[in-house]
């Protein structure tokens, strides 16, 4: 599953995209506004990502009422870093913002490993006190220091290859209200290098006392992941676990069926390399768990691939 579609809802609001220098339409009810700034599509888009997003934000109708915001494409996103400064500068005018997604681009708009991020620490500091949802797509050049977010309920880092410092940054953060954490570990081809220590720190649950849903997705080290999970203080507290989009296969079955996962209400295994027999054994060992196991993959002679490696 490469990312081929944009979100249609975010934060519970329908998404409305406003492209380039187009006017904002009248809307009868609150929406999640989405910025899409593409210098290939429009000759009018000539500024830097910060300049263009700043201009777009200036045109937001009633910014003091905006609760959800998505930053999709920005100009030359495969080369230019995310428009963090524009968002930081505008923060005082978005007091009602609760849901923020930066980098919400499809594979066709910009492949995930090519999305250039940057130091988002100022962004997080500016918005952390008020956000309930924060998603970042693309972790190339991403710098994130440990942070405190008292009201953050849902956090997601979507990546083709997650650097271990980012795993550690979340592990060292203070997220007392976080109920859902989604981390795409990715593949070493694209920089995935999570150390056992950093992963253990994340799975200690110390940063996330209220966590009930964890996604360790798009990972090409699934055995390492399930082994670490099985030994973790966090797993018993989870109601829902998402191990989808990675290379999870038969080698993970013994760990998955040894007991530590049987309490889960939900287990997402979509996009996997398990056989029907593997799935039968997993379902038998987790009889009260709702298991989603669609999109089975067949291993070819060139091996297994994560769903979003690029």
């Amino acid at each position, binding site marked *: *599953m*490469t*990312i*081929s*579609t*944009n979100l249609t809802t975010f934060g519970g609001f329908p998404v409305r*995209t406003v*492209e380039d220098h187009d006017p904002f339409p009248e809307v009868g009810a609150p929406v999640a506004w989405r910025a*899409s700034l593409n210098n*290939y*599509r429009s000759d009018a888009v000539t500024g830097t990502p910060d300049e263009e997003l700043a201009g777009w934000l200036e045109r937001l109708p009633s910014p003091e009422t905006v609760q959800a915001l998505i930053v999709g494409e920005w100009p*030359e996103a*495969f*080369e230019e870093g995310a428009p963090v400064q524009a968002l930081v500068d505008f923060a005082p005018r978005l007091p009602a913002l609760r849901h923020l997604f930066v980098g919400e681009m*499809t*594979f*066709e*708009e*910009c*492949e995930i490993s*090519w999305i*250039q991020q940057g130091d988002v620490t100022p962004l997080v500091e500016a918005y952390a006190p008020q956000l309930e949802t924060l998603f970042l797509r693309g972790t190339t050049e991403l710098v994130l220091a440990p942070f405190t977010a008292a009201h953050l309920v849902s956090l997601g880092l979507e990546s083709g290859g997650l650097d271990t410092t980012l795993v550690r940054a979340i592990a060292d953060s203070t997220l007392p209200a976080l109920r859902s954490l989604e981390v795409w570990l990715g593949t070493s081809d694209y920089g995935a290098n999570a150390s056992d220590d950093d992963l253990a720190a994340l799975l200690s649950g110390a940063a996330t006392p209220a966590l009930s849903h964890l996604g360790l997705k798009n990972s090409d080290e699934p055995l390492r992941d399930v082994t670490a999970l099985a030994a973790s203080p966090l797993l018993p507290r989870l109601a829902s676990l998402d191990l989808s989009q990675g290379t999870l296969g038969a080698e993970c079955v013994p760990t998955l069926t040894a007991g530590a996962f049987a309490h889960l209400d939900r287990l997402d295994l*979509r*996009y996997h390399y398990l056989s029907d027999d593997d799935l039968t054994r997993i379902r038998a060992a987790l009889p009260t768990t709702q298991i989603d196991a*669609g*999109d089975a993959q067949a291993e*070819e002679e*060139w091996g297994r691939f994560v769903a979003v490696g*690029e």
Partner: protein
Amino acid sequence: MSEPGAPDAITIVGVPSDRRVLGFEDAAARLGLATTLLPWSDALADPSRASGAHLRIESPGLDSAAADELRRRGGHSAALAHGEIGGWQEWADGLVGAVDDLARRAASCDTTPAELAALFDKRRTRRRLAALGVPVPHDGPPAAQVLRTPGRWFVKTAHGSSASGALAVTVGRGRVEALGPLVLVDGVPFNDLALHRYRDDAADAVLTALAARGPLLVERWFPKWGMRTDDRSLTIDLRIVVVDQVARVVVARGAAGPMTNLHLGNRRVDVEAVRAGVGDATWQRVLTVAEAAAGAFPRTRCVGADVMIGSEGERVAVAEINAFGDLLPGARGGGRSAYDWQVAAWLGGPSGAGWAT
């Protein structure tokens, strides 16, 4: 039965037992159009067999001996291994010359050598479309500079079938990646069913190898619209069969990567779901653009137009026009197959709307 002035019988120039030929013959038999088959091997040996006939030109694809002969006539004499990328310009030149030999003797032909020549060369197709104002992806840099030009590019062989030798390239931040359904074997490019990713020096090697095989065309990568279906998230494009300048059959293809051609193991998706997803306004733009593109080849009765929808679900652009783009098993438009529509056109005009709106 036939309208006054319609031909009594059609001579299909094709390959016996090819499902293209069988599909047309089946539709013709059902709808009351007499056909006779002139095998490509015979047509090449003796073009006088086309004298006085009304010709339907089918692809010689399955007849490897005919394909070799056509390539030889076009100036390519070396043998090609299965899947090896090469000889496409020569194949096209040979085929255009052969069709010329046949058409000049025939009573009528469903295409012309000039239009076929343009259809086989993506660069010439683009120029014709652009001249008519049909939206196509923007030009990219010359192929020799593509890896040094920051941006996202689609590199295609100027000749050759869809997705053969196509590469989606991203250049930026001191790094280059090329993604495409091809592999290098001892430095020779071959088609492959899987998408392979090449970086930096490997990308350079692939592009160099491809450039050695024939001219390349570079476009700006047009980001395509996608759709969720079942558990998958797929990029969508559309193949529209246009008969006598009217869009008749539409097939939607979905892919997990930037190339949606079905032979890459990608899949058909439900056309109505795509239409519902993008809305009627965009859908109409798709059909209008396909018909406008066919208008660039006014003396070719049937073309297959590959139309892309932009990622925001509104813009459309033509990716490619196919001379033999009507092999779509099971696909229907207005209850009829692409072959049905073409037979109806030969019989003097179908009744009813093309694509039911």
